[in-house]
Structure formats: C-alpha cells, structure tokens
C-alpha cells in the first residue's frame, strides 16, 4: 500500500492509528471516539487541508489532500473529514474564509439544485448530503441568473431530515427555504456543478480505493489464520483465486482514483481529459466496491457478517460512497454521451491523451 511519503499523510496516519483504530471504534457503542479524533484532526489542520493560509486553512496541495483521503479510506474514517475538506475547497474557490468546525457541501448529487434568488437568499433541496447532521456550516454551490455562486451557510438556517446511508453514516436531506447565507460570492468562471461533482467523486473514489486496500489486507490475513478442512483456507485454490481477483479490483480502484487525483491536481481546467479521468474513477471504483467487497465477505464467511467484526466498516462504507456526488450509473451515462458526441474516431485519442 502507498507508504506515506508526505508529511500530511504521515500525520493523518498517526492520528488514525491512535484514535481511529477500526477494532476499537467497532467495540465502542457510545461513539466516544468521535470527539477526540475530530479534535486531533482539527489541531493538525487536516480538515482544512485544501484551504489556503490566508483563508483560514493549512494550505496543503491538492495532491497531498487526495493522498490524505486515500489514507482515510484505509481506516474507514467516519467523521466528516472528506466533507469538510471539500467544503473548504469549494469556499476557497470564491475566496471565502473557512470557519472552524465540521462542514459539508450542498448539493451532493448532480440531480439536486440550490438556487440563488435576486434578493440574495438560497432555496432548494439537497438529498444524500453526507454528515449534514454533524456539520456546523454548509458550503453551498448555488445557481443564480448570472451563473454560479458559492456561499457559506449556517446549518441552523436549513431544515435537516436525518437519514443513514448503507454504511450507517449520516446521509441527510437538507432543505433551504429563502435562507440568507453568512457569505456569498460569485464562483470563478467555468466553475459549475459538474466540476464540484467530479471533485467530490474523486474524493469518494480515493476513499473507496483505500477501503479496498484495507479489505484486501484483512482478508489475506484472515485466510492465513482460519483453518477449515484441516488446512488454512489460504491454501485452497478457490480462495486464492478469489483473493487474486480482490487484489485486482483493489489495484484497479487505486490506479483509477490516484490517476484522477493526479489529473485534477495538475489540471489547468476541467476539460474532457480530466472529465474522463474523474468520471472513470468514480465508475470503476464503484464497480470495484461491489466486486471486491463481495469477495472480502465471501472469504470471511459468517464472521464477516457480524457487527463484531470490522469488515463491514469498510465494505458497507465503500458501497455507500458509490452514491455520493453522482453514482456510477450517472457518470457512465454522462461519459457515454461525451464519448458518443465526440465520435468514434475521437475515442482512442481521448483515452490515449494522458
């Protein structure tokens, strides 16, 4: 697995290892791990990694932040770290200073839309908003008649209908009804909801890839411990081949996600080539979450189906993350349209462009 070779990831991994150990968390029925973990992450400046110093953040590079999200996936971190990072990144696009505390982003689906009225108020409904219930502020992308604006909104101004995703993390419906934001500024030219969804999708792809790395790791370890029919199950060819396929899915997810992250980190604009990278990452990582997670469960047998075992912390979250910022079906349709529209003879040049 990607050994950390940067200070951001090193810092994060140390905090995760100390305060987000999956087994410890899994045994903790009162969620008493959450506050100390968030505090440690905040003290290290990690939730505002993508926010420049002058806007209240720690000014890490996009690349370092992406690597941090991959590490967070390896620990199935269940605090709004990715969400706050994305919110800070969104606000920074419009040079809005990030406040302290947990944030999340609206909308979180390409289908939803928040609108900006001429009186400066925001309205609209956003479904599947991760960790809305835990957030203190929303970073909002809003459609107005003059284009997109980015706003900071106090959560108390919105109505939250609380829900859980398949990974048991908060995934809430947020309704804004003529809400006055704390701050609102125009989005940069060419910044639109697709840009935001692609960025969110790549964040989720990296988390899924991290979760798959961890699932591969614990599945291999388990197969080398568990004895059945008088030998370790890792010695059965059927199990070996399943694990080899899991390694393939994990590798594909990691390659797709890190490639897309690299593309965005070095992109001057979100052109067709970055679109291909980011959409492909979400599609392929979501497919890997299904196939790879399924194998991890198969290897573990009944024990992996229990609350006591940590496997579900990874497998269910990886499945849940598929839904955020556009599902794989959504991106497949959009990517398919883009490819068809460019025409058959432009497909290979697009694929070979990077």
């Amino acid at each position, binding site marked *: 697995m990607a050994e950390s070779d940067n200070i951001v990831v090193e810092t994060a991994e140390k905090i995760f290892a100390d305060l987000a150990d999956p087994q410890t968390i899994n045994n903790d029925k009162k969620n008493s791990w959450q506050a100390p973990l968030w505090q440690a992450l905040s003290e290290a400046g990690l939730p505002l990694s993508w926010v420049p110093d002058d806007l209240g953040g720690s000014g890490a590079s996009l690349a370092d932040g992406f690597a941090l999200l991959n590490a967070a996936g390896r620990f199935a971190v269940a605090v709004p770290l990715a969400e706050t990072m994305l919110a800070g990144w969104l606000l920074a696009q419009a040079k809005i200073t990030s406040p302290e505390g947990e944030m999340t982003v609206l909308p979180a689906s390409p289908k939803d839309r928040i609108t900006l009225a001429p009186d400066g108020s925001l309205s609209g409904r956003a479904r599947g908003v991760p960790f809305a219930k835990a957030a203190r502020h929303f970073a909002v992308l809003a459609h107005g008649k003059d284009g997109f604006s980015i706003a900071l909104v106090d959560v108390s101004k919105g109505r939250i209908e609380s829900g859980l995703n398949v990974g048991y993390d908060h995934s809430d419906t947020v309704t804004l009804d003529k809400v006055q934001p704390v701050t609102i500024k125009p989005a940069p030219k060419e910044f639109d909801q697709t840009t935001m969804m692609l960025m969110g999708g790549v964040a989720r792809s990296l988390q899924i890839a991290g979760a798959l790395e961890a699932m591969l790791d614990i599945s291999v370890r388990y197969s080398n411990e568990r004895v059945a029919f008088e030998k370790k199950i890792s010695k059965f060819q059927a199990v070996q081949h399943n694990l080899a396929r899991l390694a393939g899915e994990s590798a594909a997810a990691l390659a797709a996600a*890190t490639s897309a992250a690299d593309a965005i980190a070095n992109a001057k604009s979100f052109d067709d080539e970055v679109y291909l*990278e980011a959409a492909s990452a979400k*599609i392929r990582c979501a497919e890997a979450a299904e196939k790879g997670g399924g194998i991890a469960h198969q290897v573990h047998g009944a024990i992996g189906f229990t609350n006591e075992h940590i496997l579900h912390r990874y497998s269910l979250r990886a499945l849940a993350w598929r839904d955020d910022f556009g599902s794989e079906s959504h991106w497949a349709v959009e990517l398919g349209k883009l490819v068809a529209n460019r025409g058959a003879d432009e497909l290979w040049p697009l694929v070979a462009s990077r």
Partner: protein
Amino acid sequence: MTAALRFDPIRLPEKCEQLRKEVRAFLAEEIAAGTFDPHKPNREDTDAPEFSRRVGAKGWLGMTWPKKYGGQERSFLERYVVTEEMRVANAPTRRFFVADRQSGPVLIKYAPEHIKMEILPRICRGEICFAIGMSEPNSGSDLFAAKTRATKTDGGYLINGTKIWTSSAHIADYMIAIFRTSQPTKENRRHGLTQFLVKMKQPGIQVNPIGQITGQYEFNEVVFTDFFVPEDHVLGEVDGAWKQATSELAYERSGPERFLETYYVLTELVRAVGPNPDTRSAEGIGRLVAQLHTMRRMSVSVAGMLQAGKEPVVEASIVKDIGTVWEQQLPHRVRDLAAFVEETATNRETLERQLDFAIKTAPKLTIQGGTTEVLRGIIARGLGLR
C-alpha cells in the same frame, strides 16, 4: 499492509506525444496505400513483410535496445506508444511483434555477443520473425513438465520432440524454445530445462499448421527430429531456464496488447449509436470506456516501473488478468448494446462482421501467454498465500 501493490500515476512524457503523432501519420499513410484495412482484424494477410521492414526503417523495432545492436536506446514508455497505436489501428504486426517484445530482450540478456551482433540488427530492421517454443502436447500451463529433449552431442545438441500451439512458427525465422537437458530433481521439479535459440526453416524441423476456430491458421505443431543446435545457441544457464523465465513475464504481460485485442468493436459500436445515444447505450459505453481507461492507466504505470528498472511481476499479472478478461467480455457487451442499434446505421455490416470475428477470438484471450488460472496463482503468491 501485506500486499504492497503500487500503481503510481505515470504520465507519458512530452516526447511520447510527438512520437505518437509520427506513428499515427505513418499508419495513416500505410492505410491510404492499401497495406491494411483497420476495420478488418480478420484479414488473411496478417504477415506483411514489407510493412515490417518499413516499421523497422522508422526505428520502431528494438527501440529500447543498445545502439550497437541496431536499437535506439529509447524508453519503454516510447515503445508503449508505438505498440498501442499499432494495436488500435489493427496494423499487421505479427511478423515483428514477438521478436520486438520478447525474443530480442532474451537474446540481449543471454546470447553470446556474436549472435547478438548477427541477429538483433535484423530484428530492428524488421527482417526476421520469431516464435516462442514453450507448450508441448502434454505441457501447457505446466511449463516445467516439458519433455522435448536436447541431447548433448559433438559441438551442440540434438533435439527430439514436439512443440505445439506455437504462434507464427510457419513464418518464423527463429524460435526461442525450452528443451529438456536433464531430469528434474527431487528438490526442484523446475530443474533440467534449458533455453535455446533455434534457426527455423531447416531439415529436421517440421511445421504443421493447426486450424483455429476463428478460421485462421496462426499457431502450429513443430516437430523436431534429430535436429542439431550448435553449442553457442544455448541461452543462459544449462538446466537453469526456470531462473530466467520470471523476469520476462512483466514485459510480456502488461502491455497494451493485453486489453486492446478486441478494442475495434467498441469504436464501431460508438460509430453505430451515433452522436445522441439512448440512456442504455450511453451507460454501456460509459462503463466500458471507464474500464478501458483504468486498465490503460494501470498498464502505463507498469511500463513506468519497467523503465525505472523494477520487476513488477505481480502488478503485470494483475494487468493481464483484468485486461484479458475485459477484452474477452468486450465483444459480448458490445453485442448486447448493439442489439437496439438502428437498422440504418451506416456501419452496421462492419460492426456485425467484426463482432463475428471478435466473438470467435475471445476464448483464446485468457489462455494465451499465461492462463487466467496461472496468473491468479502468481498474484496469490505475491499476496503471500502460497
């Protein structure tokens, strides 16, 4: 973590893009001149000796090899670009592909200097074709069960036995083969095989073509009867071929040819659905393109590791496993999606003809050059399961 799999996002350097333009221009000229039809992967004339020489003249064979052997000392990433552009265009690469990818590097590593000086420049000029003699009637995936004997005689070895499924043996000038020089030992069943360079088209070698389910004849049975191989044609250590086999696998298994073999049907599907696809077609195409893009990024990553002097055997096996399964399923997925293509699509006939061939080709893709089962065994070993 147990499994240190790395797929770093390697980007092709700028000079590769210049090279890509040159390759595309060259292929466009060849197509315009009628050398080959990119829409016909099932043509009969897969052996195109003149085309092979023209590719050699461009300096695109043995690109990564030392200049003294006729090479260009260019990078694996540059070679990668040439390979993928040729493959996507359905160019007739049969005559030089094996020599360029595999046989040349083996000779560079293990052949005596005078043989390198004699043969490598000819590969670079696109003059000669190589075959690989691995499988035998009773040893396929189980390479180390090979029985074809090389018996020591004055000044060399006498070869007796049969190789089978040998691609291109009917046109090959040389074969790199493994023959049995000793019996396996109790401690090491892989002991006793030696790698040889064999000059083809001589008495004592009989090549019998074998018809394939695609209608093509590209593999063969090769029978050796008291065939003499001189001493200096031994490649590497006598009885020690098993030590030499593994490092080549990363080259053989991770290239773009491991997922692009049936790519043409995807292009044709995109053409058939037109610029405004329905939701079903769009989603199907989107998923296939995402999968293709991901494999290519993995494959380029392995090429980058090779360039950096690493031996990413497990990563390469993963690329071949995922890549070949994908290219095998591709014609079937395209067929699914093509079911509702308008009757009026202008390329409908081309697509149908291509699907017919790709569907017949598909079964071999997960068998040739290391079966899926063998690959998964290698990956499992890399994971520490064996």
